[in-house]
């Protein structure tokens, strides 16, 4: 599989330690290319420049909140089927409901388990592959 064919995973989080943790957790999946964005605006720009196969999205970020990113992305036809995992620090339950309503495929909380995250990402990528 060439670099072009590698699946693109966009990791959006304002903490670079967290972005590295996520990328490292998924490093065993293989045939993946990780891209990072440190805020919501950057996330949208990245998606405009090229669609991702999966997005892992933090919520509480500067410039644009994760929920806003999700709403914007889901309103665009080309991103409607992209799996989005919302990965956020444990908070109120209303946030989870809001995230799911805005179109999150999955809602996970930090601290996360690397094994669980990897399994969920594999599952979502396989599901998306089947549909395609």
């Amino acid at each position, binding site marked *: 599989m060439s670099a072009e064919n590698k699946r693109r995973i966009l990791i959006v989080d*304002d*903490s*670079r*330690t*967290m972005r*590295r*943790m996520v990328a*490292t*957790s998924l490093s065993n999946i293989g045939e993946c290319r990780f891209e990072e964005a*440190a*805020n919501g*605006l*950057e996330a*949208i*720009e990245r998606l*405009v*420049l*090229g669609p991702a196969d999966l997005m892992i999205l933090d919520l*509480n*970020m*500067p*410039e*644009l*909140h994760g929920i*806003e990113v999700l709403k*914007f992305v889901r*309103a*665009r036809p080309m991103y409607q089927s992209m799996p989005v995992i919302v990965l956020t*620090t444990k908070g109120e339950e209303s946030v989870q409901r809001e995230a799911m309503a805005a179109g999150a495929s999955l809602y996970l909380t*930090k*601290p*996360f*388990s*690397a094994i*669980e995250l990897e399994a969920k990402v594999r599952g979502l990528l396989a599901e998306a592959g089947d549909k395609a």
Partner: protein
Amino acid sequence: MADLNQPPDDFVNQFLDDYFAECEEHLAVVRAGLLNLERFVDSSIADTAQLDELFRSFHTIKGISGMVGLSPAEQLAHEMEGYLRVLRQGEALLSKEGFDSLIEGTKVLEEVINAHKTHAPAPAIERTIEILREVVAGKDTSVTPAKGQPEQTQKTEDKKQWRFLFAPSQARSEAGINVNTVRARLQSIGDILSTTPLVHDGDVLFELIVSTSASESELDALKDLELTSEPIEPEEKVEPITPTSGTSQTISTSVRVDLVRLDQLMLLVGELVVTRARLEKNLKSIRTSVTPVQWRQLQEVHVAFGKQLRDLRNDVMRVRMVPIAEVFDRMRFVVRDISRETRKQVILELSGQETEIDKFLVERLMDPLLHLVRNSISHGIESEEQRIAAGKPAEGHIYLRATTAGELVVIEVGDDGRGIDVKSVAAQAPEVALWDDEGRIDFDRLLETISAPGLSTRDHADRASGRGVGMDVVARAISDLDGSLSVFTEAGKGTTFRIELPLTLAITDALIATADAQTFAIHRSAVQEVIEIEPGSIKVLENNEIILHRDEVLPLVRLSRVFNLKDKKEGSLHAFVIGTGNRATGLVVDKVLGLREVVVRSLSDPLTDVPGVGGATELGDGRPILILDVMEILNASRHVYASQQSH
């Protein structure tokens, strides 16, 4: 159950360095943010942008602390975040107790993280968490605070609002133009009120509303960003989607580099300097065996090499320099903290924050400065009543100043307090003469005395200074950095400590000289001028050799005698003039060989800890030569002469 979610240690360990670095950055943002927030204590206005930023920093610390399994930090950050949420949502006003709890919480959070870093036992957090919870529980819901962004209410008349549109594209992204860089550039000409993604004709655009007083030409300078822009009428009220504030927008184009790598780079440059010196020596030896044309070409290459090497060295050195603001900002927090503890009103005045120092010095200066500042507040600044009684303003002043002087960085920590109680110091060290014959304080001796281990001018160490390092540790820390410390104090007026540090540590320009066939190096920065002396012009006055130089008497010190070598018998001598005015002294050597760039190697072996020797270097032939600490030599000589004179 929680254990199942706990990441295994080896997963966590690989992120610890990142974790500590990121926590440190957020704590710096938090400290600055809290200081800005203080003016809103008990005010009906809430600085929502500032609260948002603080909230996010604690939120991130909470998240990454959870990931590395540092649950006390996670819990503390969670409680602080909780209080900030209440404030942000306008459910409470920022009370004095609440503000204090945030300050205290930040301090404990920092201690918890540092303890984890140094494998020290973690401090207790229960009390701090309890206080934070009390503050949140006791929120006064009867108030309805007016939310607002005070920064923006002070809008001046000449500011206009502009609407910019930015269309991201692959080509622009490759040229380094993206939404982050666009925001950073617009931020430099005004305030970004909002950034919103829009869809226009099927394309995604970013709309940025900016309030700015920039001129047409300043806006013209943004042409390379290829934005479309139009002024908007001030009546069109723009509601920002996401409030922004000062410190979070620094979209950096910088790279983080481990200091160890920079040290390695510097070491390599040092090796290159030595190799170049060796090349120079070899070149000289073949001069007669090549044609003049070949020789000139070799020389040209060699000179260019030397110049490029010097540029490289300067650039590598510059990479390591950071503004001293990094240290000073920390002190702002400390001052606030200690002044609350000691119940003294203190105003901190900073100057020269842009002065650059080696990153290596930043960490090493923190403790000495911290202690000097602590001493100034707890011992120097009087209580409010005492100050008023003495006719001084009620609030004390602490000064932190930084400047560069030649190849030195000068940092001063001063206060307008009561001054050092010299009589009390004298009472504890009766054997030291702290005053000269005319009753003036001998500041050097005073410093020496207060820096002796264990001396305190207070009967009992008070809370603030009791937990810090003593003056002896301050003096040692500065001397370890090849710096010098001095003090000036005046009863009733205040005390100033002055720290002088070399700007560069590893490579320096040195004058090379000989005495009795031995070669020595002397830091160029210490030498005012080099003079030639005819032996006949030297006069002897009360055991001191002197000459007349520029119509002034210049005392001489012979290097040969300092190291028990033979004096030069014939021919003229050279002298380095060290110091100025009536402190000027001539250090006499047999011959000056020239100016060289040398790599300073420290002599850490205690057996070679000889007074007057500051290090060693080599000139390319592999043989080590000593670098002299001329100030130490001259001070020692002055004492010798003084004792000779008194007999």
